[in-house]
């Protein structure tokens, strides 16, 4: 069997702040098979964006290792890494150079490689713009002259112009309107199918993750507390945090009212990690041992949950 597209092995990452060390990613391991889509969900501050940056090689782990197609990301040459794995970020307003024309933005990764001729660059840029649904005329515009959805298409074209195998999408549709979000999600799905891409797809929107991901990892305060195939996890969540997240999704069904999620007001604080299970201060079903002993991983097919009660 070939190596997984992404392999994360016992990765740790902390940051120093004024108030001490903050644990962003705490002993996380997982793998994504080639052609798969792993959705990562969790609240702000749970470490999901740090995870994305570690996989992209933009941050180095304190310990542990990230491998992409069998190679360690840390030892990889920047240009080689760029040919293999590319990001699409949340905010197309701040991730595009406001002074560069769309064509030049999309051409940048090719130019940076230093091995492509001008004709080849022009051909590939035109091909990619057409592929993401932008006209040649759009290529001559500045980012400020585009709508949010068009800007995100530019960001996707730039990510794909080097023909990478893996794309890390960090909240790619969170800044967009629903009708535009649907367009971009459809485009990402189509590109994955046609080009055989692997996605790490980070979102706080569970409905979006359910739509795009084949597997889901739920993060809480730096750890993956539950993982499984999308269908199983959404149909039969085992971790109380996953259950609460799913219960707080407001589906467009009138008459149901707003659910009581039952998480209380104790918000997670990564600088002040609770002992035992890190979710116990908010957990509606916590028992005495949850406050003192870390829960084991209860395995099931494709994953499992870290909970004493699962």
């Amino acid at each position, binding site marked *: 069997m070939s190596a997984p597209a992404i392999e994360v092995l016992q990765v740790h990452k902390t940051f120093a702040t004024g108030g001490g060390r903050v644990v962003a990613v705490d002993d996380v391991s997982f793998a994504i098979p080639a052609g798969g889509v792993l959705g990562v969900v969790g*609240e*702000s501050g749970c470490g999901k964006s740090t995870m994305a940056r570690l996989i992209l090689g933009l941050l180095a782990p304190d310990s542990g290792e990230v491998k992409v197609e069998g190679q360690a990301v840390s030892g990889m040459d920047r240009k080689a890494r760029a040919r293999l794995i590319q990001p699409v970020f949340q905010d197309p307003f701040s991730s595009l150079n406001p002074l560069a024309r769309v064509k030049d933005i999309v051409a940048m990764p090719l130019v940076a490689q230093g091995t492509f001729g001008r004709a080849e660059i022009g051909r590939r840029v035109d091909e990619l713009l057409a592929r993401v649904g932008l006209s040649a005329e759009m290529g001559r515009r500045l980012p400020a002259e585009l*709508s*949010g*959805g*068009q800007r995100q298409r530019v960001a996707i074209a730039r990510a794909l112009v080097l023909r990478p195998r893996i794309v890390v999408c960090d909240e790619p549709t969170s800044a967009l*309107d*629903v*009708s*535009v*979000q*649907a*367009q971009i*999600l*459809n485009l990402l*799905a*189509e590109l994955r199918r046609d080009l055989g891409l692997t996605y790490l797809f980070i979102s*706080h*929107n*569970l*409905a*979006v993750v*359910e*739509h*795009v991901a*084949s597997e889901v990892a739920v993060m809480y305060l730096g750890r993956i507390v539950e993982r499984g195939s*999308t269908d199983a996890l*959404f149909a039969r969540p085992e971790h109380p945090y996953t259950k*609460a*997240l*799913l*219960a*707080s*999704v*407001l*589906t*467009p*069904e*009138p*008459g*149901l*009212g*707003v*659910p*009581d*999620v039952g*998480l209380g*007001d*104790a*918000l997670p604080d990564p600088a002040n990690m609770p002992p035992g299970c890190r979710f116990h201060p908010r957990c509606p079903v916590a028992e005495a041992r949850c406050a003192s002993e870390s829960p084991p991983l209860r395995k099931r097919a494709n994953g499992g949950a870290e909970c004493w009660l699962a």
Partner: protein
Amino acid sequence: MSPLLEIENLRVEFGRTSAVRGISLKVAPGETHCLVGESGCGKSVTSLAVMNLLARGAQRRADRLAFKGEDLLGLPERAMARLRGNAMAMIFQEPMTSLNPAYTIGSQMTEVLRRHKGASQRVATERAADLLARVGITAPGMRLGQFPHQLSGGLRQRVMIAMALMCDPQLLIADEPTTALDVTVQAQILRLLAGLQRDLGLGLLLITHDLGIVARVATRVSVMYAGEIVESAPTAELFANPSHPYTQGLLRCVPVPGKVRRDEPLGSIPGTVPRIGAGFTGCAFRDRCDFADASCAVAVPHQRAGATHDYLCRLAPQSARTAA
């Protein structure tokens, strides 16, 4: 019951661009009226126009704009300032930018009550602490002494809500009050607003782009597109019989948990919202509409799909279309 807020044929122009093109709506006591639409449709401009907080250079006109029967159009700014934050309050979208970073939470919250009601600092502080507790903030005394940057996004948003409630408003205008928040916190805040509404009978004009929120909290929904309300109906009726093609398109775009087909694309609305200049006629949605014909460039009929269900389209109501 007579309405708290009445808007009739409101128009707002910025130079030659029309941001709001003749919208009408009412909010009754205890009612939640949701104004839904995408970026640039004019929903935030509408709320600012009601509060008379539009940027300089904006032109506001209306046939009627009234709060509890009192005309707001001719009201001098001094009198409007006495209403604003008092009997009619507003929660803005960005708690990061709408709280003053240089003052403590306590001084910003108490100022409202001292200013409008002439309350003493002691009384105002007690009220602020009481409201912070009601919006689910633990240790309110400590929070009053903190600055906005010391609070998380969820806490700041709750502070904004508590501040809006300082003077017991009868009408609350909330512009995307939960957009920046995690889903878990969003659910808590919406429950809180619903509870306050039940207890205090306040009328709520809730501006959002999230159809999930609309379905769960609205009494009535008005869908805005390119500066117009293209459809308005009681919530259950709107979701059961959406009659404007734009409303139907919006509903198809939302991924619904549990009803997902991963191999099928989501419904989407091709194209983008047009910019409306002077002399525009016909339906603003026609370039993106599957059902548009030549007549849509000329005029749009105002139709009724029920006693309280209005929409702007030449097509027959959805209920008649499915029956046929």
